């Protein structure tokens, strides 16, 4: 019947309780018998020995019941614990039989043997519960304690990127694999490798929304099934949240997953969108960036934000071209290559050695290498650059062999090659291969006009704009053509002779003046002059 099985199961669960009795009592009895034997005294009372033996038998019996019910994976420790435990029980039984037959010396030897069997039995039992090497562990070399690492977001308000390898595995190792790992495999579940996690345990797959893994983690602390067990270090809320997020993302083992609130960081989903506008307005505090800016401030190089509020930079070494070389360039820019959008190193002393650093400037749009002693070798570092739009190589020491590099730059739109070792034929060929790119070879000007005006002939044949259309008018009238005869002969302003060209009409009368300036004076006070 069920009830018997359950009762026996309860009895089995008393094993951890019951086993302590025979351990203590057998040892105690053994000690007493040893003293007695030394003094030549009689052995202990029969009743005592009987009780000790019964406890041993009950201990072993409960262990056997427990084995039947609980999920202990079969292992070396368990097998030998079982054998030795049963042997201990039998040993105790034989001891009591010998005692009742008053065979003192055999009894004592049997007791000794029983104790000798009990010790390893107990040890293996402890190993099963507490893990291999439990006893000596403190003496062993300090293993680097595994601290769980929580993923950090890149910037405030953004989600962090977490991965199994970096964040989940250390957490499991720190909190779970003591009992669910190589040494101990509780519930037949190992959590120390992806395969083992996927394999699951006694009750089936651990992962999944209805798997035991998550269920037990989310149980309240008081619940029996809650994991980690109450006596062990518990997961903190963020750690639990990390595991929950991981499970909800279908427990990825290789891909990264987003953890936390906020948008996904720039180098994830927005990377494609950020093509045109790299990292405008990054808000986070980047001490490397600040340090590099301080370094630039201390140098003669000029830097400016690409646009207001942006962290992307235009850097020009024009003010200090004479003493800018590979070393100084590296010192100033090696820590912030991704922040450089426009770089002017024209006329500096850098060589091919710096081209690796320049090639690492992934957000570079404009690069001015005019009059720089780089060669095709250095240019190789720019192959495949995804964002470079304008490349100025005027008077640099490059040749047509570099043509193929330009083909690998998808965004290239302006290329300046005057003064290089390109030949016109090479340029023509390159222009054919890159029809969308403006390739300047110092030849984009046209000396000859399209059209030259015909020979100049001056006439006055054009019709007058203002005059009525008449046939004559070859000698145009002067502007101040007089149609009116002045009524005076002396200029009222100056007193000189009137020039009929200059007249005004005032009050119905035609008044003549000597020159064009007098009418102005007249108009100031006509009445006064009219008296003349």
């Amino acid at each position, binding site marked *: 019947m069920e009830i018997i099985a359950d009762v026996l199961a309860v009895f089995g669960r008393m094993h951890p309780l019951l086993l302590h009795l025979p351990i203590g009592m057998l040892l105690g009895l053994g000690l007493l018998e040893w003293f007695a034997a030394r003094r030549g005294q009689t052995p202990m009372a029969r009743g005592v020995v009987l009780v000790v033996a019964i406890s041993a038998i009950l201990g072993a019996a409960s262990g056997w019941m427990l084995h039947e019910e609980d999920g202990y994976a079969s292992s070396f420790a368990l097998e030998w614990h079982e054998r030795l435990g049963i042997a201990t029980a039998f040993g105790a039984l034989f001891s009591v039989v010998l005692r009742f037959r008053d065979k003192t010396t055999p009894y004592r030897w049997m007791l000794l043997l029983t104790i000798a069997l009990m010790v390893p039995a107990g040890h293996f039992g402890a190993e099963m519960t507490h893990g291999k090497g439990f006893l000596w562990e403190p003496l062993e070399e300090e293993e680097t304690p595994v601290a769980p690492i929580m993923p950090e977001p890149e910037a405030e308000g953004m989600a962090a990127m977490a991965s199994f390898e970096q964040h989940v595995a250390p957490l499991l190792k720190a909190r779970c694999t003591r009992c669910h790992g190589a040494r101990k495999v509780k519930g037949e579940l190992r959590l120390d490798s992806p395969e083992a996690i996927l394999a699951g345990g006694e009750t089936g797959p651990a992962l999944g929304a209805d798997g035991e893994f998550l269920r037990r983690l989310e149980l309240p602390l008081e619940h029996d099934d809650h994991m980690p067990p109450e006596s062990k270090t518990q997961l903190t809320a963020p750690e639990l949240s990390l595991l929950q997020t991981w499970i909800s993302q279908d427990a990825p083992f290789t891909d990264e997953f987003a953890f936390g609130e906020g948008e996904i960081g720039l180098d994830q989903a927005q990377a494609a969108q950020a093509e045109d506008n790299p990292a405008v307005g990054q808000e986070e505090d980047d001490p490397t960036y600040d340090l590099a*800016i*301080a*370094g*630039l*401030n*201390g*140098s*003669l190089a*000029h830097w*400016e*934000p690409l*646009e*207001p509020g942006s962290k992307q930079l235009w850097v*020009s070494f*024009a*003010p200090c*071209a*004479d003493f800018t070389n590979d070393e100084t360039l590296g010192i100033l820019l090696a820590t912030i290559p991704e922040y450089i959008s426009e770089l002017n190193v*024209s*006329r500096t002393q850098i060589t091919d050695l710096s081209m690796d650093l320049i090639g690492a400037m992934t957000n570079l749009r404009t690069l*001015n290498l*005019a009059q720089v002693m780089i060669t095709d070798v250095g240019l190789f570092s720019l192959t495949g650059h995804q964002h470079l739009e*304008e490349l*100025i190589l*005027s*008077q640099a020491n490059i040749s047509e062999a570099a043509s193929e590099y330009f083909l690998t730059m998808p965004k290239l739109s*302006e290329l*300046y090659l*005057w*003064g290089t070792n390109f030949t016109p034929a090479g340029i023509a060929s390159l222009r054919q291969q890159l029809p969308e790119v403006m390739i*300047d*070879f*110092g030849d*984009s*000007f*046209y*000396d000859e*006009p*399209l*059209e*030259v*005006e015909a*020979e*100049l*002939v*001056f*006439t*006055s*044949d*054009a019709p*007058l*704009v*203002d005059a009525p259309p008449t046939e004559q008018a070859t000698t*145009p*009238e*002067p*502007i*101040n053509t007089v149609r009116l005869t002045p009524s005076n002969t002396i200029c009222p302003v100056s007193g000189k002779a009137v020039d009929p060209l200059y007249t005004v009409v005032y009050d119905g009368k035609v008044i003549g003046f000597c*020159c064009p*300036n007098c009418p102005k004076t007249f108009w100031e006070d006509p009445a006064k002059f009219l008296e003349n």
Partner: protein
Amino acid sequence: MDTHDPNDPLRAHDLLMTRRRFFGKAAKSLGAGFGALAMQSLLGRELNAMMPGNAAAEGLAGGLEGTRPLPVVGPHFKPKAKRVIYLHMEGAPSQLDLYDYKPGLRARFNQDLPESIRDGQRLTGMTSGQERFPIAPSIFQFSRYRNNQDGLWLSELLPHTGSVANELCMIKSMHTEAINHEPAITFFQTGNQQPGRPSFGSWMSYGLGSANSNLPTFVVMITQGIGNMQALSARFWGSGFLPSEHQGCKLRSGEDPVLYLRNPEGVSREDRRRMLDLVGELNEREYQRSFDPEVQARISQYEMAYRMQMSVPELTDFSDESEETLAMYGPEVNTPGSFAANCLMARRLAERGVRFIQLYMRGWDQHGNLPRELRAQAKAVDQPQAALLKDLKRRGLLDETLVLSAGEFGRTAYSQGALSTENYGRDHHPRCFSVWAAGGGMKPGISYGETDDFSYNIVKDPVDVHDLHATMLHCLGFDHERLGYRAQGRDMRLTDVAGHVIPGLLA
């Protein structure tokens, strides 16, 4: 009063200025160098901490050589042009004989300018006495050069400029209000006919700051002309109400671009440095006492002079230019002070990060003897200005350098003085004139605006001087309505209260 507490009213009175003026001016000194370092130690902590840009100053390495000027206003949005080369044709070149092709006028030789066209335009004192205003067609033959539209007509005086026509943004519909040189040039440079305002270059020095602390931010070079020359005041590159360090630095046209730049015999550079340190310290104490920003300007000018001792000889030494480059600028390139030499210098300055380079070519005021004088004038500028554009282009600098060539007004269609088929003169004409720009965000290879048949009135797309300024400021990354400075009780700006950005001029 020895307190440094800026809130102390007696102290404020002592300063005789508002705090904003103090912080604003003190922070914007060019190449503060020693001044910045010294100020940090001499000033009270609260003042020091509140000075804008001090975070940047924290990063100063010791010594002068590596000091970055304190931050400036900065562009409002991403600029296309990083610098300006402004070729000012002082005297007002005749648009009819250079840029504005009016073949119809050939058939109007000696006809009177119709009243309907003249439309009451005021006359200058020089022609108001003329009996007649006979039309003088240009005696120069025009050719059509390839550009991005259906070709650009230029006179025979500008063949080299024709070869770069596909880079030019020719504006034929400029107009202004001033009719005489001084107010007109003041207007073109400062946005107002009355003097007292900062010039364009000063605004750029204020707005963009220096990109090379070893050279002045605003450089001016003057070429003497062949034709009739008018006065050229230093006011045209003055800083007006902006701090003095934003004024233009004029390089002399002779052998020595900067007088007394070299140390005298027996004085080494280290001696000079120690002298400057001591003088700087004395000036610093004065500054501490009075907080007069002019003291700060003086300190920075001394420091700039010290740096220029090294940078200017290197700049003016053309020996590192190839023969081909020198030949491109024409035969006069080796004559110091010629337009060709100055154009080459302008390119070198542009390479070295100078923000505003202004060249004045004098002598375009052809009231009489135009054919002879204009030929000589044009010959002096044609090849060099084309070479400048070609040189900038092939070095990849043209798309970030805004080049402008402009006079202050135009010239009349009618002749001033006697008209003959060989000779004539032209008077001032503000109602329409031609300028051209290239590079730096201006649309290349176009002709913008149209005048009437007489090149007297504008019939299409007028461009005011303020509009041109606004458009140029736009190319430089500024909203012309926002780049301002408080002076005389109001917020002043280069475009005064006018100006629109003209989209048709932008690339």
